[in-house]
């Protein structure tokens, strides 16, 4: 009988790969207050929230944006490039929302087209070739659902992006900044460590979409948001994210500098640990991280298999220091 409630993370004791000194929240019990799911939705969507380029300019040095998918178009909803994180060159790929209506139109409200995901794939491969770690910044309501996206293979592009990340032979750190909208987020969110800002959300469908389908009423979005357990602390409980990055008291939108500082501390600490792992260990731990997800019972199974060792124990160098 297997009953994996969540496979990836089991609370504070095991998260040896998550640094103490990064001030991360690795158990929802650490939170003084637990915002409602709906508050998190509002915070994650706040137009003043730090978006990908806000974070890049504050966390990294010498950012050079790299453009294009080499096939159709440079998608402004995804930005990527090379920069330095405390002197260490890295590849960054992030979804970019606007801070104004005008910028949002230009950025398609952070909803990438297929060519955006194909640009991401190109940059993932570039990183792999030159052993650059990948840091992704997730912030999208979802992949663009319009007919141009369908025509050019939105689903194919997302699938290939996920596929590429699962076996990419270089460390990947994912940070969910704001909205993690379904497959459009997952195309940037397969990593060795998956972090989220405290008020970020991550869900299989938007609360509005869920409400329309399950409650047959878009006004039930708040109820749907709660039911879907899409807020940071829920994601932590579910093991979908490994840790939360604390936001300033009033929320990330009140202080971009402070938010960036917390992100930087977390990235530096995680990267230092991941870089010590051999690539083969990295890839097998990444496999097991995602392999573990699922809530199942298998009544007929002959005997209970021994409890699997948590995947992160395979990183000998990443254990919590005594």
């Amino acid at each position, binding site marked *: 009988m297997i009953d994996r409630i*969540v496979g990836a993370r089991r609370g504070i004791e095991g998260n040896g790969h998550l640094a103490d000194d990064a001030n991360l929240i690795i158990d929802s019990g650490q939170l003084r207050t637990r915002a409602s799911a709906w508050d998190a939705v509002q915070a994650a969507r706040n137009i003043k929230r730090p978006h990908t380029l806000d974070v890049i300019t504050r966390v990294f040095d010498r950012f050079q944006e790299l453009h294009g998918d080499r096939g159709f178009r440079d998608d402004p909803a995804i930005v990527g490039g090379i920069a330095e994180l405390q002197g260490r060159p890295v590849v960054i790929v992030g979804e970019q929302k606007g801070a104004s209506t005008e910028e949002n139109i230009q950025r398609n409200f952070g909803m990438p087209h297929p060519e955006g995901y194909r640009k991401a794939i190109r940059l993932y491969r570039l990183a792999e070739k030159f052993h650059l770690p990948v840091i992704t910044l997730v912030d999208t309501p979802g992949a663009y659902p319009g007919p141009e996206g369908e025509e050019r293979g939105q*689903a194919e592009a997302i699938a290939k992006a*996920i596929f590429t990340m699962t076996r990419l032979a270089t460390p990947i750190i994912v940070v969910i900044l704001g909205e993690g909208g379904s497959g459009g987020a*997952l195309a940037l969110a397969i990593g060795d460590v998956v972090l989220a800002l405290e008020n970020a959300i991550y869900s299989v469908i938007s609360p509005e979409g869920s409400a329309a389908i399950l409650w047959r009423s878009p006004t039930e979005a708040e109820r749907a948001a709660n039911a879907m357990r899409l807020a940071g602390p829920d994601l932590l409980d579910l093991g979908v994210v490994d840790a939360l990055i604390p936001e300033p008291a009033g929320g990330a939108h009140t202080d971009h500098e402070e938010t960036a500082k917390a992100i930087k501390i977390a990235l530096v600490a995680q990267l230092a640990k991941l870089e010590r792992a051999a690539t083969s260990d990295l890839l097998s731990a990444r496999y097991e991280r995602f392999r573990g997800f699922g809530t199942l019972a*298998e009544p007929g199974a002959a005997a209970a298999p021994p409890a699997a060792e948590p995947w992160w124990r395979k990183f000998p160098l990443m254990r919590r220091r005594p």
Partner: protein
Amino acid sequence: MPFGRKPKEFPDHLWTKCPTCGEMLFNKQLVRNLNVCSKCEHHFRLGARPRIEQLVDKGSFVEQDSSLVSGDPLRFVDSKPYPERIAAAQAKSGEKDAAIAGTAAIGGNPVELVVMDFEFMGGSMGSVVGEKITRAAERALAERRALVIVSASGGARMQEGTIALMQMGKIVSALARLDEAGIPYVSVITDPTTGGVLASYASLGDLIVAEPGALIRFSGERVTSGTVGEKLPVGFGRSEFLLEKGFLDQIVSRAQLKERIAFFLGSFRAASQDVRWGL
């Protein structure tokens, strides 16, 4: 009953009207014709059990992981609790969840086969579908057998929230290992295949074939047209459209599907000079 469980919608003493050509089809004949209209070739949906019977060599199918059932990670309740929905779907279908997996042979080629069933909660992908496919891919890797997945799904199962979303990462991780090992994976897309299923394993076959007229879209029709406020052209997001747009290797009619898959797998197998997979 030629294909195992008789589809509820076609009691064999009645007639069914073809939605494409309007022909009245005698159900017994329709089922004998693989649920395909004998006049216009309209492909009616097909359940997982009759699908398996049509695809595999007689008597070769050995079901795997049949007892897997879903938990309730979110303790999800909409108009009713998720466990009640599952129980209702199980009672109605006689199946445990939306996919059936097993080991089989197709035209003499050993395969791991997974077939989805749209009748079970819209073929939605949650932990059980994710686990069955992942295990099938892992078996294919271990035994060096080809993998064949027949998709029919509305996408990820909302009631399992991000745990359903994570199934995409889990399945694709296993497929990527299969790819690296040089083991073939054929994706068969049937009506309808949308959302997270299309945006993960259904789009990752070494070869991707679809049945005629299948709805194949990332976003549902409502979402797609609602977002841009325009009317979509006829046939948008159907198999023929995807073939033209370059996303399908072939459209294969149901009657030819088994033979075609067997040809592809046979070609890959025969060509493997160093016998990296299969026997």
